[in-house]
């Protein structure tokens, strides 16, 4: 029997799909021209890049000239935010609004700007990790140059009311950027209907390779150039195009953005079944919104258990997952997202994130449902914290009430 292996960490990265790989391969060895070259091989590459740009634009309801290819989500976030800040500073507007639960690509960029004279408002979130459009409206000031709110949270899967926030920003005439890295391909997005001015996306979360992404910039927003050099990306982001990556991203978006509601129906049903079963483990809670959440995201905290050892032990049992405890990334601080939704440090350390898609088999879902409680039980049995919780709260050793 093959050793069990379930990859349940699609929010971290995804496997390149066969259709994406098939689309990319010719760009390496046959259609390898430089899109700036004048001979046919080059022109063909330029045509491929254009067709890819059209596909990406189409998936978002954007115009083709509004899509700029980048090297991924972090780059897109940095460009959008620093660019909007630079535009704002010229008009004396040095206030930015964001949320407490953004990805570090956004948060650290905002912190950088704070060191350079900008003021940043970090909107608090509710217990599910959401901000409201009203909060944004109330925070907007005369000198606000940018609102940046993520579309869907990478840790807890909570989906923000982006269309409502977009409406507020449009009314208040403030530029609105959204980090949609986790949402693209999982939520239907129409940048025009949602009044989104800038949107970041990343290929490797949708079965394209790592190191390719895009930034949608609405016509009318003249963002400063990111990389000086050649005329690629209309002079805004120089560097010979990553044609294989661009082709792969387009194929991945075409695949991911088709039939999103149908796929979500399948995925969320699996999600809800696993959540229901795992919540039967005593002293356990679901993090994130019960309904307004990505179809393939589960985030659960188990008291008395530390996240990294949970992940290592799940891996030994053939399940690759992630944790809200940033301990895995080498820092001991628990996730800022879990703290922002109000979890005590002690509980925030012991969370598990499972992220998957519609192709998770029922058998694999069953395996997860059987394995997680065993691993949690084993770790709790050796946890002095769990022992203390049971003692002080008068619980049985398995955490059930006496």
């Amino acid at each position, binding site marked *: 029997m093959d050793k069990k292996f379930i990859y349940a960490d699609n929010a971290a990265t995804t496997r390149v799909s066969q259709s994406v790989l098939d689309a990319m391969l010719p760009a390496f060895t046959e259609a390898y021209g430089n899109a700036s070259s004048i001979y046919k091989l080059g022109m063909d590459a330029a045509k491929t890049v254009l067709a890819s740009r059209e596909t990406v634009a189409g998936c978002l309801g954007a115009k083709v000239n509004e899509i700029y290819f980048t090297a991924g989500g972090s780059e897109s976030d940095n460009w959008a935010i620093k660019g909007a800040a630079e535009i704002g500073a010229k008009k004396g507007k040095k206030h930015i609004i964001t949320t407490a639960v953004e990805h570090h690509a956004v948060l650290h960029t905002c912190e950088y700007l704070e060191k350079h004279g900008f003021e940043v408002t970090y909107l608090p979130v509710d217990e599910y990790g959401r901000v409201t459009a009203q909060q944004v409206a109330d925070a907007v000031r005369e000198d606000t140059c940018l609102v940046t709110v993520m579309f869907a949270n990478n840790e807890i899967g909570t989906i923000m009311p982006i269309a409502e926030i977009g409406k507020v920003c449009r009314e208040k005439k403030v530029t609105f950027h959204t980090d949609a890295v986790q949402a693209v391909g999982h939520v239907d997005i129409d940048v025009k209907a949602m009044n989104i001015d800038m949107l970041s996306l990343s290929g490797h979360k949708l079965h394209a390779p790592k190191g390719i992404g895009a930034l949608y910039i609405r016509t009318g927003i003249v963002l400063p150039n990111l990389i000086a050099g050649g005329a690629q990306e209309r002079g805004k982001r120089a560097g010979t195009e990553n044609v294989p990556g661009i082709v792969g991203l387009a194929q991945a978006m075409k695949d991911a953005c088709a039939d999103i509601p149908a796929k979500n129906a399948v995925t969320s049903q699996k999600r809800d079944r696993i959540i229901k079963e795992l919540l039967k483990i005593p002293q356990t809670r679901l993090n994130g919104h019960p309904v307004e959440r990505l179809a393939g995201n589960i985030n659960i905290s188990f008291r008395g258990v530390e996240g990294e050892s949970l992940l290592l032990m799940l891996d030994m049992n053939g399940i690759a997952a992630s944790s809200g*405890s940033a301990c895995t990334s*080498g820092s*001991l601080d628990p996730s800022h997202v879990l703290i922002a939704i109000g979890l005590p440090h002690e509980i925030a*350390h012991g969370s598990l994130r499972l992220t998957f898609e519609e192709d998770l088999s029922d058998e694999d879902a069953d395996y997860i449902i059987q394995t997680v409680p065993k691993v949690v039980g084993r770790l709790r049995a*050796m946890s*002095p914290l769990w022992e203390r919780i049971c003692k002080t709260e008068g619980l049985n050793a398995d955490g059930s009430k006496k």
Partner: protein
Amino acid sequence: MIYSEKVMDHFANPRNVGEIENADGVGEVGNAKCGDIMKMYLKIDNGIITDVKFKTFGCGAAVATSSMATELIKGKPVEDAVKLTNKAVIEALDGLPPAKLHCSVLAEQATKAALADYYRKNGIDPEPIVGKIEDCADCESCGS
């Protein structure tokens, strides 16, 4: 981040997990806020550590370092166990990632805390022997 095979082995098959009833020395260090707590139990006969058990709440390195610390002191005279250093634990595990070095300090402190408890129970002031066991609140490893 990469763990050595030894670390993974001690995490997957931790040695000496459990508790000792009526232990001759018990020590607990760390706190839930930082994400690691270690508790160590010693059975000491005629100055020799005849049994040792531990319980740990924490990351893979926290489990592995406590497991290794118990192995290093089991069967040893208390005077030797007092000299256990976090460096010895790290070496025995073939190294630790830089971000995890504090776990080895915690393992050393858990051992010392248990030994201090043993000395105290025997009417001996532990501080001149095992030194001061720092409160985790003073630890700078975690940002909280």
